[in-house]
């Protein structure tokens, strides 16, 4: 039936708007790839068909009246205005339908709430406007930022296939394992949703929520934040990559190694050029949303970095602003969001890009020491 509906929709769409024959006229919910999402899908279809059936009966009677009982057709009005039996019946029957509907819904709900016996525990933290995934048992974690460029959003370049739904670092989960998600938020309420999993849960600052999923098919699954969380609410996608267990284990090992390497990186000797290259990337994902890619900012809320006094002169103050933020303003403390290398790279980049040619650099080690200074 779904296929037919789709075809009918596509046909109708194609007839009405020939230019959009390429269109993706999805009409219905997708069944998804988890047990939960499939159960939800069947609940959805059941209740939908119940509604359609009731609708056909009610509207059928109505349209019959409209058709057959028109004054212009010479209809004479009857004068009845109550019928106890009928009235009792149409109170009881819907009630019974509802009870029948409530049974499977209750069962699914109980199942959705059963977070026990999980294999992998991941903490999901919502920030304005990015997600952070911490693998609790494995001791590593990372931020996941949208990777769609501002140029695509502002129609300066063609939009890619996964426009607005692509991130730099997706969450990775093993196929077939029960993944328990613990959700919280840093600033405002966010909500983490992957339609294909049938999982949506609010991330609330100061509180922890839990839910779970078990993905049956490998693949990349996309969703979005679904609780209004400010300016870039529409730009914090969720991407989850489900991979076979072996691949997952390997990925975890790599991540742990990478976390280790990151710590070492802070000890390496970096050149200005290396930091500039890395800084440009880090700047694009962490800073450009507010301060703009060309450093022009959007005063007064977001000061321009290009030609800024702090950026051009006082290194210590610059470091302090980036690491600790400026309380009372929009500037967040990036000290815990970015690692030392990225912090050093961003600061170096800001001091040398867009004509800010100070020639000055700061090494990850200096940042590390600043952060840990006695």
């Amino acid at each position, binding site marked *: 039936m779904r296929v037919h509906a789709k075809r009918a929709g596509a046909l109708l769409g194609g007839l009405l708007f020939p230019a959009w024959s390429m269109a993706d006229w999805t009409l219905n919910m997708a069944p998804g790839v988890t047990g939960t999402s499939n159960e939800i899908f069947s609940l959805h279809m059941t209740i939908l068909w119940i509604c359609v059936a009731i609708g056909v009966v009610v509207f059928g009677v109505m349209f019959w009246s409209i058709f057959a009982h028109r004054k212009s057709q010479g209809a004479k009005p009857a004068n009845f205005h109550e019928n106890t039996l009928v009235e009792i019946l149409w109170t009881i029957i819907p009630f019974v339908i509802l009870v029948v509907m409530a049974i499977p819904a209750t069962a699914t709900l109980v199942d959705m709430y059963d977070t026990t016996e999980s294999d992998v525990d991941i*903490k999901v*933290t919502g920030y304005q406007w990015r997600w952070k995934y911490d693998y609790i048992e494995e001791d590593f974690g990372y931020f996941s930022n949208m990777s769609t460029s501002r140029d695509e959003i502002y129609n300066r370049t063609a939009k890619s296939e996964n426009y607005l739904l692509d991130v730099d670092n997706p969450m990775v989960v093993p196929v077939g394992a029960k993944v328990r998600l613990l959700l919280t938020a840093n*600033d405002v309420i966010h909500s983490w949703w992957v339609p294909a999993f049938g999982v949506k849960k609010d991330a609330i600052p100061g*509180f*922890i929520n839990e839910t779970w999923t078990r993905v049956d098919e490998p693949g990349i699954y996309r969703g979005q934040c679904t609780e209004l969380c400010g300016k870039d609410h529409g730009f914090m996608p969720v991407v989850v990559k489900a991979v076979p267990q072996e691949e997952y284990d390997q990925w975890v090992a790599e991540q742990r190694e990478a976390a280790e390497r990151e710590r070492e990186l802070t000890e390496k000797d970096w050149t200005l050029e290396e930091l500039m290259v890395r800084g440009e990337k880090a700047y694009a994902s962490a800073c450009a949303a507010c301060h703009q890619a060309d450093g022009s900012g959007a005063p007064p809320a977001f000061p321009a970095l290009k030609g800024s006094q702090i950026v051009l002169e006082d290194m210590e103050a610059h470091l302090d602003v980036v690491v*600790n933020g400026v*309380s009372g303003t929009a500037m967040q403390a990036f000290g815990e969001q970015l690692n030392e290398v990225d912090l050093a790279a961003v600061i170096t980049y800001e001091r040398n890009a867009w004509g800010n040619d100070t020639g000055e650099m700061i090494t990850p080690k200096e940042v590390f020491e600043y952060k840990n*200074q006695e």
Partner: protein
Amino acid sequence: MTDAPQDRSQPPRSNTRVVGWCLGGVVGMFAFGFAMVPLYDVFCEITGINGKTGGRYESTVAAERDENRTVQVQFLAQNGPDMPWTFRPVTRSVEVHPGEPVTINYFAQNPTDRAMVAQAVPSLSPSEGTLYFHKTECFCFNQQPLEPGESVEMPLIFIVDKDLPEHITKLTLSYTLYDQDVSPAVSSNSRVRKTTNDNG
């Protein structure tokens, strides 16, 4: 407009009285709106629904260990907005027998060059377990001041109640650390800070 009350079939009724009743309802519902705050807290304390673990637990009976099963307790830590401290559990997770008191530590360090005061806010998941998680000693009962660069290990002593429902095998305790110097400033200084939604 000359209708005298006796023109009406109903006995004369006073607008004053109706208005009085309605205003009473309005005042009552306004008060009820505020009463929802303590009511919600009491409700949560009884049912544990929002995962807020309670205050200091004083037990009158000697704790009895349940040797037959273990429960995993995980510890999480995160910082509130603009909180520059390093904050993490020293132990990521422990296996405990219900009924036994367990001590673990959280590590906190103030990397900034100013003295700061922090408050940790606990939350437990699943919330059903909240009623069965007792803290006899917790750093979250008090604010934690730290001098510039100072670090501290903060103890937490807890008992998982032996009446914990069988199907709960894992508890996750999460602390969010908030900068208490900012909080009052949020209010007095709110004009500036509140713009973070637009731009930050």
